[in-house]
């Protein structure tokens, strides 16, 4: 029996919700709300046949019966009667059996007006107070009761007068205060019941509406259009679909949703490949899209969004453009702050099909001033990837640039291009005035051209200036030399670590020589190539007694490490 009553209560609250919406939407005196009122009135009368009082508790977005069972629940705030009551300061409602349909109507009118002035926390209670609701009893929120030592406002003037007294505990959403909430203008009409709509069918429709609301229609429509595109024989109609799709691509781009654009562009690319042998017109239409994707406005969408885009998307997008897009991207490079974006662009441009030396040429002819520097370095980075050999002389022309960043970019580009000419040109960077450039030269040659590096190392190790090199440079020099694991170089290293001091040197002080040898020993101790044992053994046997101990220790450590490994 209790369950049945609970069901009836649920039907009542559902009906109350419907009636509320109808009262909210339709103008006063309209017949539709009255239909819902009648339905609600029927439910109320039915409930009184079960119990002498209808009461419910308001728990934020839910209504509960006195036993705590949920009789109404809505997650959304909009049109949620529980939330409307709650925000209005009500915590419970009881309806006595003497209630009349006029009272119910007045109650509905009050709560529907509440929706219009719901920014005012007192208005609801004031409105209820104005209504003749003898058979309704309201339980107010504690905070309201505490602040009830002022007269309940009855008119709008009264409301204004008491406006400065805010209830303390009511949820007041700061943000939503700024702009008055959108009113739902949904409408409901009473259906004629020629055929009965069952509860299951009502639920089915609700589910369908929910699904409809959640559906990504834009993607669905584009998918459909792609089917049409594949099917369309007529080139002119084909073009019309493409135009629509093109707009979709741009819109996605303008919203920063490069992923969506890419997905479509890739599909188009697939179509284009299919058409290239069968339908040149269609294929040319698609190509037009690529061309326009690289237009200034679209490029701007990407360049202005800075760090918000996934670098791999940027790379992929740029790689699909027409090579002419390079001339739009390049002038914008100085304004880009994000290195991540720049790297993505470099990679993207280098992957553009049909990119030719002439697309980069003019940027490699620029005067190396502050303004052009980012463009030149960017162009060099692209060249490092695309390796156009024809452009080597232009790169070499920047070799003696006063700007170390440009020189560094030149070095990287030359090594990456990897021809005899470019390596030879890059050798000079081992003597660059900027230590950082020199260090990069060691690293790049170690990785890409060890044989050239050997020659450099040999010269450096035999050079009288060895001890005058900076600590960092000596370290990288030794590291590179040991790593080569070349007998000739190893001999040179052994000579350095076992070299004898002249009396003259001893008198003048041999600190820097000692530092060189110590650094060599430590570097050898830290590396695992086979020649490190030879170098340290030589040091233990013949080295200066100042570092012999150190070499002994490093050797023991290495042996221990080796034993532990075996």
């Amino acid at each position, binding site marked *: 029996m209790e369950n049945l009553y609970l069901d009836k209560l649920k039907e009542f609250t559902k009906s109350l919700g419907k009636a509320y919406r109808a009262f909210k*939407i*339709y103008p006063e005196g309209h*017949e539709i709300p009255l239909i819902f009122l009648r339905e609600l009135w029927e439910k109320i009368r039915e409930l009184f046949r079960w119990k002498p009082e209808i009461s419910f508790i308001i728990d934020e977005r839910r209504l509960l019966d006195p036993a705590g069972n949920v009789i109404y629940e809505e997650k959304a705030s909009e049109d949620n009667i529980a939330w409307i009551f709650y925000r209005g300061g009500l915590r419970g409602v009881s309806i006595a059996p003497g209630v009349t349909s006029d009272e119910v109507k007045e109650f509905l009118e009050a709560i529907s007006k509440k929706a219009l*002035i719901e*920014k*005012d926390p007192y*208005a609801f209670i004031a409105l209820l107070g104005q209504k003749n609701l003898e058979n309704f009893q309201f339980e107010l929120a504690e905070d309201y009761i505490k602040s009830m030592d002022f007269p309940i406002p009855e008119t*709008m003037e009264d*409301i*204004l*007068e008491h*406006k*400065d007294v805010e209830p303390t505990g009511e949820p007041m959403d700061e943000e939503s*205060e*700024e*702009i*008055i909430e*959108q*009113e*739902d*203008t*949904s*409408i*409901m*009409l009473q*259906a*004629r*019941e*020629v*055929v009965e*709509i069952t509860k299951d*069918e009502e639920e*089915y*429709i*609700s589910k*369908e*509406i929910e699904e*409809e*609301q959640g*559906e990504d*229609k*834009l993607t*669905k*429509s*584009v998918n*459909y*259009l792609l*089917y*049409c595109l594949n*099917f*369309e024989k007529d080139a002119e*109609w084909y073009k*019309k*679909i493409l*135009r*629509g*799709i093109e*707009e*979709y691509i741009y*819109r996605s781009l303008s919203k920063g949703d490069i992923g969506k654009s890419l997905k479509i562009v890739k599909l188009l690319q697939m179509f284009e490949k299919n058409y290239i042998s069968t339908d040149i017109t269609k294929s040319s239409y698609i190509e037009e899209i690529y061309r326009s994707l690289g237009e200034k406005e679209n490029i701007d969408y990407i360049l202005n969004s800075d760090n918000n885009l996934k670098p791999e998307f940027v790379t992929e997008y740029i790689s699909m453009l027409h090579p002419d897009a390079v001339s739009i991207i390049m002038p914008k490079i100085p304004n880009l702050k994000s290195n991540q974006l720049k790297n993505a662009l470099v990679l993207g441009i280098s992957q553009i099909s049909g990119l030719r030396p002439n697309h980069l040429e003019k940027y490699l002819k620029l005067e190396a001033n502050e303004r052009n520097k980012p463009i030149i370095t960017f162009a060099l980075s692209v060249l490092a990837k695309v390796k156009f050999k024809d452009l080597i002389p232009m790169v070499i022309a920047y070799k003696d640039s006063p700007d170390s960043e440009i020189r560094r970019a030149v070095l990287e580009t030359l090594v990456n291009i990897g021809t005899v000419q470019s390596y030879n040109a890059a050798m000079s960077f081992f003597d660059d005035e900027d230590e950082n450039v020199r260090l990069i030269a060691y690293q790049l040659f170690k990785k890409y051209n060890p044989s050239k590096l050997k020659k450099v190392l040999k010269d450096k190790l035999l050079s009288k200036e060895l001890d005058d090199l900076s600590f960092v440079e000596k370290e990288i020099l030794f590291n590179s030399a040991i790593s080569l694991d070349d007998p000739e170089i190893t001999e040179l290293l052994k000579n350095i670590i076992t070299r004898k001091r002249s009396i003259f040197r001893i008198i003048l002080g041999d600190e820097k020589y000692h530092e060189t040898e110590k650094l060599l020993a430590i570097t050898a101790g830290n590396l695992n190539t086979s020649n490190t044992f030879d170098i340290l053994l030589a040091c233990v046997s013949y080295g200066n007694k100042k570092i012999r101990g150190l070499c002994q220790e490093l050797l023991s450590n290495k042996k221990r490490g080796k034993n532990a490994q075996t």
Partner: protein
Amino acid sequence: MPKLELDNVLILFVSTLKSAKLYDEGHPLLKSNLKRLLGVINNSVEEDNEFSLAVKNWYIYIMGERIRIHALNFTYVKTVLDMFKNKNIGGFVVKDKLEATQLLTFLRILYTEGLKKEHIEKKISDAGLSEKINILPLIQKGEILDPKQRVKTVYFETIGLVKNIAMTKDMKKMRTKLSVGVYYLIDTLKTSEQLLLGLTVVKNYDNYLYNHSVNVAILSLSMGVRLGLKTSHLLALGQAALLHDVGMSTLPKEIVSKPSVLTPDEWDIIRQHPIRGAELLCELLGVTEESAPCIISVLEHQRNYDKSGYPEFIQMDKQSLLSRIIRICDFYDAVTTPRVYSPVPMTTSEALKHLIEGSGKLFDPVLVKYFVNLIGIYPIGTLVFLNTGEWGIVIGQSKSKENFDKPIVQVIKDASGNDIKPKVIDLAFSEKFIMKSDTPWKYGIDPAQYFI
């Protein structure tokens, strides 16, 4: 002022007006809204020498730029339109910078109930603001107060709109008109559903396509309303319904209006209309959030609930709800409309029978039920023969659920079939009852004459 900001200015204006109405001067919300609105107005005065908010016909212009009406700003637009219309003013122009108190005074004059243009102007003058604020006269294109007349105007203007859309080369200009047209259909449905549904009996040979599109839109929107769709979905539904057959306008006229049965080849051409429609919308509207539901429905409206139908090459996971609604309404209106090759269409009961038979295969079975409940067993426009022998046209449905078989009837002929001075009978309150029903076209009666 950038176009994008216009919506926000409108919302700010309405919000400030409402907060000025509800709160006293010191309230933080009012203060903050006033400050923001004042910033907008004074900036415009500084940059453009004035700030204007004007109403012309169905549109609001801020600084001369028309606000595009859409689902999110519709309430605000309507608030301003209704308010200005009630006050018989066409907006206002601020010509000099205002102070917060002056703006508040002006807003309070504006919302004071019962004031018409001349009172507002006087109060502005009394407040010493007439040098700074001018009230504009209301320019309305034929204000119509008679609901029947208003419904007709909405109906025929919508037909004109669809015609324009099918013939336009610059759809971008039509976008707003399309939204507004649908909004007005929805608005009219709220107040005069029966009158509007009554007009769906208007069938026009010459303008079949446009007529049919508007009828389908009205039926679909009525369905949508009954299903409880929100305004944004109703808008999409209305637009999709109005445009569902737009592809027909691209097909050869001699085939579309062929007075005899179509050959298989001609049918193949007719079957292209969903694709052509989608392609046309692509070109005219682009692929946007707004146009996507239309494109989907245009492509899906000839597909069936069981996924049969055409265009078959589209792999459809699930037919959208809007398309399923349009599918039913499209079928119903098409088969009950006389055509050149078939001057006597199906009777409404035959059409309903087909719908019910096709339920679950061609049509969504639950939606069919809603549709039957929408139009009733004696739909508006049906010719009925009463037990007295009199002939009548159904012009409305009974307001009570129980009397669904007792519609409101306009008696047009006596028992001998002679024309009589039409009289209206609500069968729910009459001893008379319906003996049988038929399509009026069979008897040479165009039911539209009783609705126009």
